[in-house]
């Protein structure tokens, strides 16, 4: 199997010195320094096939950005091997970056003062893209992203959503087979997010572009990625299908009852004595949540027992959201059956 990203035992350590406090401490720092080594990425291995869309998630400081920066050739790994598009990103940097596109949500690729179109033209020159290819390819990208009316405006006059769409277009000028997106939807409104997701799906289908995406917004991942890689304190704690993650972790269902009068916990427990139910009180004595296994017999049994003896005003069923699942995982720190 040919992998587009092949990483083995990748490690990155940062050395930093801790300053001592006070003037005396500052003097001592001049002569002997307390160096401490912080491991940002702790020997991870991962393989990604061409055409995959992979979500790379983790809390702040988990090592996501550091990994992305090593995969894009910005940082040199402390140890381990990286092969992306068959090249060593840091060693063959100038050759290598021709084969990738990068969008950092918090950093602009475009020139602030000049029109978007001029930025594109400079990048076209930088990537040495031929006129013919540029015309046909960019026309397609521009019309799909719907940025035609923005082309003559300077970047500083664009809204964040408009800028982000232009950034995406800029990253695709040379039609790279691999696209790195670091927080591409940060701070965007729902509509723009949807547009961007749609666009990413489309280029993935049309050009077979492999996409590695980091985000805090799990709905991005749900909408785009079949596979997630989860990072915690520099280690990969989960690598697999999103669906499986949900099945393993989102095992429960929750039923929220709002009764017409206050009900005691004891009454409820007696009513559902035959089932495994955890009752939790909501805002007041009349609202209760039952956590149960995702099983049709139990669900209908519990509902049946309760509604047959207590009057209800409202009833809601909720599945554990991916966000809750992820939170649970981080709280427990490791993956079961992972």
């Amino acid at each position, binding site marked *: 199997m040919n992998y587009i990203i092949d990483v083995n035992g990748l490690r990155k350590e*940062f050395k930093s010195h801790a300053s001592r406090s006070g003037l005396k401490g500052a003097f001592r720092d001049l002569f002997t320094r307390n160096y401490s080594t912080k491991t940002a990425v702790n020997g991870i291995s991962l393989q990604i096939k061409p055409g995959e869309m992979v979500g790379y998630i983790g809390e702040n400081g988990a090592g996501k*950005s*550091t990994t992305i*920066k090593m995969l*894009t*050739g*910005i*940082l*040199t790994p402390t140890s381990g091997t990286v092969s992306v598009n068959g090249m060593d990103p*840091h060693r063959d*940097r*100038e*050759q290598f*970056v*021709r084969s*990738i596109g*990068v969008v*950092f949500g*918090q*950093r*602009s*690729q475009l*020139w602030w*003062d*000049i029109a978007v179109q*001029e930025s594109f*033209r*400079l990048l076209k*020159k*930088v*990537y*040495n893209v031929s006129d013919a290819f540029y015309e046909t390819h960019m026309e397609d990208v521009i019309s799909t992203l719907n940025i035609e009316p923005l082309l003559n405006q300077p970047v500083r006059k664009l809204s964040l959503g408009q800028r982000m769409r232009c950034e995406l277009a800029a990253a695709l000028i040379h039609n790279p087979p691999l696209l790195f997106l*670091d*927080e591409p939807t940060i701070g965007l409104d729902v509509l723009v997010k949807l547009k961007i997701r749609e666009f990413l799906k489309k280029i993935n289908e049309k050009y077979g572009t492999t996409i590695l995406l980091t985000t805090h917004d799990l709905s991005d991942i749900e909408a785009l990625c079949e596979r997630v890689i989860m990072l915690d304190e520099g280690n990969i704690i989960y690598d697999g299908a999103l669906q499986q993650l949900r099945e393993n972790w989102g095992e429960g269902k929750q039923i929220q009852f709002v009764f017409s009068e206050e009900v005691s916990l004891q009454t409820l427990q007696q009513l559902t004595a035959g089932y495994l139910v955890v009752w939790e009180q909501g805002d007041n004595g009349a609202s209760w949540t039952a956590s149960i296994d995702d099983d049709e017999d139990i669900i209908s049994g519990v509902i049946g027992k309760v509604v047959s003896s207590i009057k209800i005003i409202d009833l809601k069923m909720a599945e554990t959201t991916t966000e809750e699942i992820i939170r649970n995982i981080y709280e427990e720190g490791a993956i079961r059956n992972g």
Partner: protein
Amino acid sequence: MSYVSIFFQYASQYLKTRLTYRADALVEIISDLLSQAVNLIFILVVFGHTSLLSGWSRDEMIFIYGFFLVPFALFGAFFNIWDFTDRYIVKGEMDRILTRPIHSLFQIILERMELESLFGAVTGIVIMIVSASQLHLTFHWYDLFVFLLLAFSGAMVYAGIFISLASIGFWSDSRTDIMPMMYNIGNYGRYPVNIYNKVIRWVLTWILPFAFVGVYPSAYFLGKEEWYTYTYLTPVIGIVFFFISLFLWNKGVTKYRGAGN
């Protein structure tokens, strides 16, 4: 030769932007001219009190100053890297630079160029022509090429020193005042080095070779044969210092730590 065409693309884009802010560019050129005038007046004031300074006459001093302005203008136009650490390391702009398929230093030169500084070279050449006619200097046809070679070498000395200093930023991004200090030291290069004490002369020749930007190359045109050895060394020093700085830069890029998000 794609670097050349990329350079022209950037330069034309630069001019386009500059032309929309014409007033800015004009103010910059005028303020450059003013500071050059102040420096000239300083030389004139000194020679109001004496006619020779360590064997150099007033017009020779002015000629050296005029020559110095040419490499300095080249340097100022293309190596605006005095705020490199702040702008590229601390703010993490280097991330963006490193994701593009051009040598990182070349990209920074392209992004930071200030072509209006080149106007200083015009001033310098005018000053040289005026003082040369005062001194009744004669030139050969090949002196033009010697001049170009020496001016470029001087600019490389300057660039080498400042690129090396900027490279420090890859290892340590703490604030230092070393850049402005170096600009001040650089100014010593526009006066003949034998007016300084021995230690300073040695430093300006071998450690921070700013003397190769002004006095040593000018000595050739002024016919000061006792300095010719240094004149011939100028291209060598320029190349050596520039390559040392490139080496440091390339080494530094591998040490780049990035800025946290």
